[in-house]
């Protein structure tokens, strides 16, 4: 940031180039020359820099070489100000050597960006600066989340991103990234997987993370470092590490539908930083609600949930560290439903208990500035128990359980083999056991081994190329290679161009491979592909098969679903006033796994299995815009335009093989213009947020408008594709209001109205009970 004496040779050259040279000799006695070159951190010249000389009240601009030559009276010192969009303004006073005819200064300006030093970890599994990142990365910081005082992952994503949160409490709930189904997005907490459960709904709206420091969202396939399920994107929740002697927060929230949320978070640093710990506890309950007052069951059930997350850190030496993390989640859901037989109908009470316990140990060692490595273990236990009883007499109607154990060990090393290359190598091994009555022979064990390699390369200061490749060897499916290439180029400090190409895969689930399930009262069956021969043989033996629809021998082994994707876009930032990001994307997914009937049983019910059939695409653009104005205001928007489709359906439509029928019974080919792509994909979706944040008053208030255009809801005319106006659900707008104020130093309160417009429709992507109110009070004690 200081001034430097200029190199005489360059000075001479520039001096000769100077057009004011001729006038120089005439005024040698009373005036002198000032030569200023303005450069950035990388010593590249910055043109059009505004230089304000306070002493003579005049402004000068640098030329394309970052140079300006000014003729001024011989002062002993000068007060100057350097201003340039995208850089920190520099005020300085320089002393002038009055014996010299020309004084030269070399001025360095530091780039200004309000998130410039932010480091993200998710996209590369290494610490990497967010600015100029070659992949589309987005972060949501705790500072933004605190004022809205909700720590449910689903609510946070709905408030800050245009991502589609689908939580209708049916399989498939979760977040839809780039138009791909929720199970194509990997959700991680501190890099370890969450919600990747076989056959289980991971409900992101009842997942609470009051101990977070930020959420990183990376779009596009990342199987090249994460393996299965990272097709559409990765969402990584990063918890806050203790950094003060004592930091204690307790918070209570009460809202409509008897919804309570209480959490406490204690962080402590001990023994002058050698040990530290954090303990987070969250309790959440809701009595749920019904959208249809006449229905027996609730739209959202009665839920009780306890979460404990504790972490311990031991800085063994200055360069090595051990981290132990333990997280447990216990949840009980209660609801009712109606069951019908041909003679009577009964109300059934259902109760579902979920236990989720995870432990991880991480050891990290920085060997020297060229090499560091980490070693991690991860153990996860998950169980789900459902018991259904008749309401009238309490007799057992049905029960179901599922249990899963996962053990993983992983090693990762990062090293700098030669200049400007940062290489990451990782290897891991994992075993997974699933137990359930509906899994063939009661339980299954899978093993997996993987390797990944990544090179983060800067051929030039403003060009970054990341290549990565992962190899997965799994006991259930053929070996997978997943490559990725990502490039970013900083055109000028304000503009960065970026693009990436990658592949992803999603492994067949336990269900798809090993399910052996018969809906007891109806009698239809589903078999996993690997179990089809045995399952069919069993049914045949029992004389239950009436006829085959496809030969059970002709069912091919199940392959992982594969994607090939590319994206490109640019980031533009004009200091901290305006920031905008555009990303165009296209994903092609093949081998999509779908349900197929294989046989009809003597009870007239079907036997199903799974098959790789469909090919789909999604494409569109994502736009982010942030504008800060009038000191306290910020307007931000995230918008997504999305087109989707099934490529096989499109081919059938083009060859006029896909038909539809009108109300009068006339059949005709479906027109391409009528095809609406995949269901549950709004073409336009976006959020618009206006925030007023006045830190000196401790006041933060915001309104958020979340818009979805209409989308295909279900097939009505019987051809199983979206091609009729009746098959769409209407678009909708959700308006939320938040008011946050700190009081008495240690307290803060929040008042929230969600869905002010009271929009209710059971077809909504995330149904809401209508307008709700909630009130939160927080207490935070910090010992510095």
């Amino acid at each position: 940031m200081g001034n430097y004496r200029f190199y005489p040779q360059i000075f001479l050259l520039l001096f000769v180039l100077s057009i004011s040279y001729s006038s120089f000799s005439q005024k040698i006695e009373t005036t002198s020359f000032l030569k200023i070159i303005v450069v950035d951190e990388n010593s590249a010249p910055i043109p059009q820099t505004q230089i304000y000389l306070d002493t003579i009240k005049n402004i000068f601009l640098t030329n394309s070489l970052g140079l300006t030559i000014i003729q001024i009276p011989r002062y002993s010192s000068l007060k100057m100000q350097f201003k340039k969009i995208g850089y920190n303004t520099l005020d300085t006073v320089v002393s002038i050597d009055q014996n010299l005819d020309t004084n030269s200064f070399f001025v360095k300006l530091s780039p200004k960006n309000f998130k410039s030093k932010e480091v993200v970890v998710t996209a590369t599994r290494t610490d990497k600066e967010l600015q100029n990142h070659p992949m589309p990365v987005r972060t949501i910081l705790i500072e933004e989340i605190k004022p809205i005082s909700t720590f449910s992952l689903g609510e946070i994503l709905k408030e800050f991103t245009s991502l589609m949160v689908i939580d209708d409490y049916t399989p498939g709930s979760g977040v839809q990234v780039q138009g791909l189904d929720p199970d194509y997005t990997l959700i991680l907490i501190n890099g370890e997987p969450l919600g990747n459960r076989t056959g289980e709904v991971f409900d992101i709206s009842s997942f609470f993370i009051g101990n977070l420091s930020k959420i990183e969202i990376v779009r596009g396939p990342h199987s090249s470092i994460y393996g299965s399920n990272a097709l559409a994107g990765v969402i990584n929740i990063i918890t806050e590490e203790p950094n003060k002697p004592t930091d204690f927060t307790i918070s209570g929230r009460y809202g409509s539908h008897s919804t309570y949320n209480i959490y406490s978070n204690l962080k402590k640093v001990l023994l002058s930083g050698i040990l530290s710990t954090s303990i987070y506890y969250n309790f959440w309950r809701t009595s749920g609600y019904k959208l249809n007052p006449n229905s027996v069951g609730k739209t959202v059930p009665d839920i009780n949930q306890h979460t404990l997350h504790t972490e311990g850190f031991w800085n063994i030496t200055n360069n090595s560290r051990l981290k132990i993390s333990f997280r447990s989640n216990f949840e009980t859901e209660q609801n009712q439903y109606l069951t019908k037989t041909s003679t009577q109908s009964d109300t059934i009470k259902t109760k579902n208990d979920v236990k989720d316990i995870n432990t991880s140990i991480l050891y990290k060692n920085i060997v020297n500035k060229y090499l560091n490595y980490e070693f991690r273990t991860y153990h996860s236990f998950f169980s789900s128990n459902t018991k259904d009883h008749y309401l009238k007499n309490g007799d057992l109607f049905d029960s179901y359980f599922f249990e899963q154990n996962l053990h993983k060990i992983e090693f990762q090393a990062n090293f700098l083999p030669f200049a400007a290359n940062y290489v990451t190598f990782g290897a891991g091994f994992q075993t997974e056991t699933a137990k359930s009555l509906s899994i063939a022979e009661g339980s299954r064990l899978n093993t997996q081994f993987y390797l990944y390699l990544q090179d983060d390369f800067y051929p030039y200061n403003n060009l970054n190329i990341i290549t990565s490749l992962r190899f997965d060897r799994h006991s259930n499916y053929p070996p997978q290679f997943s490559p990725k290439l990502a490039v970013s180029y900083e055109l000028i400090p304000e503009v960065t161009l970026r693009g990436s190409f990658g592949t992803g895969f999603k492994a067949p689930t336990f269900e798809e491979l090993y399910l052996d399930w018969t809906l007891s009262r109806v009698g239809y069956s589903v078999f996993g592909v690997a179990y089809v021969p045995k399952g069919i043989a069993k049914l045949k033996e029992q004389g239950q098969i009436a006829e085959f629809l496809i030969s059970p021998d002709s069912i091919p082994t199940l392959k992982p679903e594969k994607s090939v994707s590319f994206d490109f876009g640019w980031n533009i930032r004009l200091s901290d006033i305006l920031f905008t990001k555009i990303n165009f994307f296209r994903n092609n997914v093949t081998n999509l796994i779908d349900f197929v009937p294989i046989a009809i049983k003597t009870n007239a019910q079907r036997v199903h299995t799974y098959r790789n059939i469909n090919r789909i695409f999604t494409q569109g653009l994502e736009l982010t815009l942030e504008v800060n104005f009038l000191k306290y205001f910020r307007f931000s928007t995230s918008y997504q335009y999305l087109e989707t489709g099934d490529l096989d359906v499109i081919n059938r439509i083009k060859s006029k093989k896909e038909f539809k029928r009108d109300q009068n019974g006339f059949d005709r080919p479906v027109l391409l213009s009528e095809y609406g792509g995949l269901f549950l994909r709004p073409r336009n979706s976006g959020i618009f947020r206006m925030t007023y944040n006045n830190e000196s008053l401790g006041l933060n208030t915001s309104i958020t408008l979340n818009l979805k255009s209409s989308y295909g809801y279900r097939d009505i005319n019987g051809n199983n594709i979206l091609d009729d106006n009746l098959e769409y659900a209407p678009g909708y707008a959700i308006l939320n209001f938040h008011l946050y104020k700190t009081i008495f130093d240690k307290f803060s309160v929040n008042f929230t109205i969600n869905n002010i417009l009271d929009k209710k429709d059971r077809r909504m992507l995330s149904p809401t009970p209508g307008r709700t109110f909630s009130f939160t009070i927080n207490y935070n004690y910090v010992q510095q």
Partner: protein
Amino acid sequence: MKIIINIIITIAFLALFACSKKDEEPTQPSNNVPKVVTIKDLPADTGKKGKFTLFRFSDSTIVSNADSNSTKWDIGFAGTTIITNSGVRGPGNGGAIILKEVDFFQVKEAPESGYRIENSLTDLAIPTGSGNGWYLYNPQTHVVSPIAGRVLVIRTADGKYAKMQIVSYWKGNPQPIDPFTHRERFYTFRYVYQPNGSRKFE
């Protein structure tokens, strides 16, 4: 760039098809096409006993199962299975062809040959299974729907011809279908029967 090009191409395509939409709209059947008969809610083994409901086109009558070994019936319905009076199912000269990607009202003539018969209990004139015969099954919603553009041309027990369109598999032909409240195994269908023995339907 490619995406933009794709979007432009797609828009161009959509525009093209939107323009041609009018030409493709079906015209009303002329009034000289006689006897489009519509049968509503014909039960098809609602008790799931494997019993076919037998039907005769000439006078739109349900035939008793006692007459299953006669030529009094032309087709039979049980669940999603439709049989003809032929082969292993009956003594008649029946058979069927599934015409694909055509409109029922546009079928002017029954094909001359290519009729399938009931070769065995699993090799039927009208194949079973989603997408194979007359219906599509949606495994997500459990709805069975007739496939638009498919017309069943039936050769009757006495060698005459009828063309037939399945309208609905659900009682009362509800729209939209809710498989949890509506009852399945009730056929609504329309047909044209040519009593004079020719293959012409007009």
